[in-house]
């Protein structure tokens, strides 16, 4: 089968949905400039050429204005896919995201819908504290949003198509180190990620986790870059006879609790590996769910292996120290298996 990068898969999802539905439009900085970038990570390259500047809208550096405009357009029935260049800049539009997009439908008593997708590159890539955060976990605390975080080209395409067709505001997090090393914006430390993507149309429903690797000794839940590090760790652990089940939630809201809980009931151990900072992060929610719903099945305390509670430092040796690595995943598993 055809193999694509995540950037290509996302571009294809955008193109297909734009061809299918004239209501789908793109809004963002540097996304459609002739001779330009196609967004910060090349994802929208070629789309302005095909769909014109009425539907691929370049904006000022006005994140509040961007998200606000996308919300208004969505209320009127367009299906905007807006973007910020780095997810850190979501905070520049936080009021629009958390106070408006997440709440307006509810406040209206269900009168309106907000079919909006907001794409946001997440994760640390050696650029220092303001271009490095993993924020997907924080947003799960804002009721009214859906949160998607795909880890493979196949998932990214199928989930983005579902997100665009969803009638709710969806934050769609893409990890910068997973875009693939083709194209202008290759990133040091990026994963050489090419994945099979069928030519035929498909979608992946929001709220369905994927067992990326079956195993029986321990369950690891991980997403985005950490999923890939976990899979590498699992590979290595297998050589030592340790069988790891790896679950990718793919969407954080709605969350497929069942798949995770069933896995824990089978393996009786769970490690959560996450690039969000540990305190109050996404891993805490997973842990709390397991304890509420499957504590009796646990043979060992739940462990969270997360990024340290620090802003992300610049120097690669420092950045590398605070974010979970394959080796630290292996070590954590060994400890849990005693």
């Amino acid at each position, binding site marked *: 089968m055809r193999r694509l990068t995540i950037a290509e898969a996302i571009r294809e999802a955008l193109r297909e949905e734009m061809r299918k539905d004239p209501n789908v439009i793109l809004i963002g900085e540097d996304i459609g400039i002739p001779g330009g970038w196609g967004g910060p990570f090349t994802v929208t390259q070629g789309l302005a050429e095909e769909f014109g500047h009425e539907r691929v809208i370049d904006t000022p550096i006005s994140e509040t204005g961007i998200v606000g405009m996308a919300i208004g357009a*969505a209320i009127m029935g*367009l299906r905007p896919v807006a973007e910020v260049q780095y997810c850190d800049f979501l905070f520049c539009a936080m*009021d629009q995201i958390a106070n408006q997009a997440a709440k307006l439908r509810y406040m209206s*008593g269900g*009168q309106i819908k907000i079919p909006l997708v907001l794409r946001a590159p997440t994760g640390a890539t050696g650029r220092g504290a303001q271009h490095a955060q993993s924020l997907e976990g924080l947003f799960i605390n804002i009721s009214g949003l859906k949160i998607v975080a795909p880890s493979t080209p196949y998932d990214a395409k199928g989930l983005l198509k579902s997100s665009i067709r969803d009638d709710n505001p969806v934050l769609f997090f893409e990890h910068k180190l997973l875009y693939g090393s083709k194209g202008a914006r290759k990133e040091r430390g990026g994963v050489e990620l090419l994945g099979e993507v069928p030519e035929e149309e498909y979608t992946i429903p929001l709220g369905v986790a994927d067992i990326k690797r079956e195993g029986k000794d321990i369950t690891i839940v991980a997403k985005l870059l950490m999923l890939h590090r976990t899979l590498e760790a699992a590979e290595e652990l297998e050589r030592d006879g340790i069988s790891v089940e790896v679950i990718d939630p793919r969407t954080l809201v709605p969350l497929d609790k069942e798949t995770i809980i069933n896995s824990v009931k089978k393996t009786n151990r769970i490690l959560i590996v996450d690039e969000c900072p540990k305190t109050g992060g996404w891993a805490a929610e997973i842990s709390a769910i397991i304890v509420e719903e499957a504590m009796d099945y646990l043979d060992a305390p739940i462990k969270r292996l997360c990024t340290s509670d620090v802003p992300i430092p610049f120097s690669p040796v420092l950045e590398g120290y605070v974010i979970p690595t394959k080796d630290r995943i292996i070590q954590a598993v060994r400890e849990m298996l005693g």
Partner: protein
Amino acid sequence: MIELSREKLLLLYRQMLSIRLFEDRVYQLFLLGMVPSTLHQYQGQEAVAVGVCAVLNRDDFITSTHRPHGHAIAKGVPMKRIAAELFGKVTGCCRAKGGSMHIGDYSVGMLPAIAIVGSGIPIANGVALAFKLRKTKQVVVSFFGDGATNNGSFHEALNMGAIYNLPVIYVCENNFYGASTHISKVMKLENIADRASAYGIPGVVVDGMDVLEVYRVASEAVNRAREGEGPTLIECKTYRYSGHSRSDPANYRPKEEVEFWKSRDPIFQFKKKLLELDVLSEKEDNRIRSEVEKEIEEAINFAIESPLPSPEIALEDVYA
């Protein structure tokens, strides 16, 4: 003076009266403890909502603020649905989920009002963008206060409205105060409309106590927007008679200032003009008043008699 039919003139008058008397009545009930929460009322500013909305079609849209009752009545949200929402009843326009600060009715072109100062303005742009892409000739009006114009949302939105040439009219109701703070403390300009030049769009100052002036200026702006000539910033100088919210005695305002503005009351002034023009007689006025009062009583009774929501519906309407 612009040419308006007798019917239209009387409609403007009736709407202003509806807002005034509705707000007064709601306040009485608030004092009786019958309205939960707080209220941000619109008495004094009626000419703005009415003058602007009278120019709009039903399928044009507005965005509103924490002070939305006047906008809602002027845009045609049924009064009983507004009243029921204020009372927290399930028959309210937002199913009792919005409340006083979030009144809205999509079917008549009013988005749920947005109570974060300034945050409705970028959203109005999006509504306008949809109209523009679909070439529908609809327009959107974004209402906001003087206080909002110091907020970043105002700046980003006006700039974007300008560059995309959107069919949106930015209507600033300058009532000289943001909560307790006089505009002179937080802005070095005399006229907020002058900020339009920072975005390359027209800015107009208008007497917000004169409904016909507001109507005239709004007409021009709406026409421009419909013709694809882009946004206008309209500054309406006006005044709120009440405190900022219903717990506010407004001691920060000089009595003379309040008196001055009340002497320019928009309803009283307009009535005088209508009497002069022989469009209205005292008798006719009484008839209109009692009709309006009757409508208000019906709305209030509807609200009072409506059931409370069943608690479980709190869990509905989060996602579509």
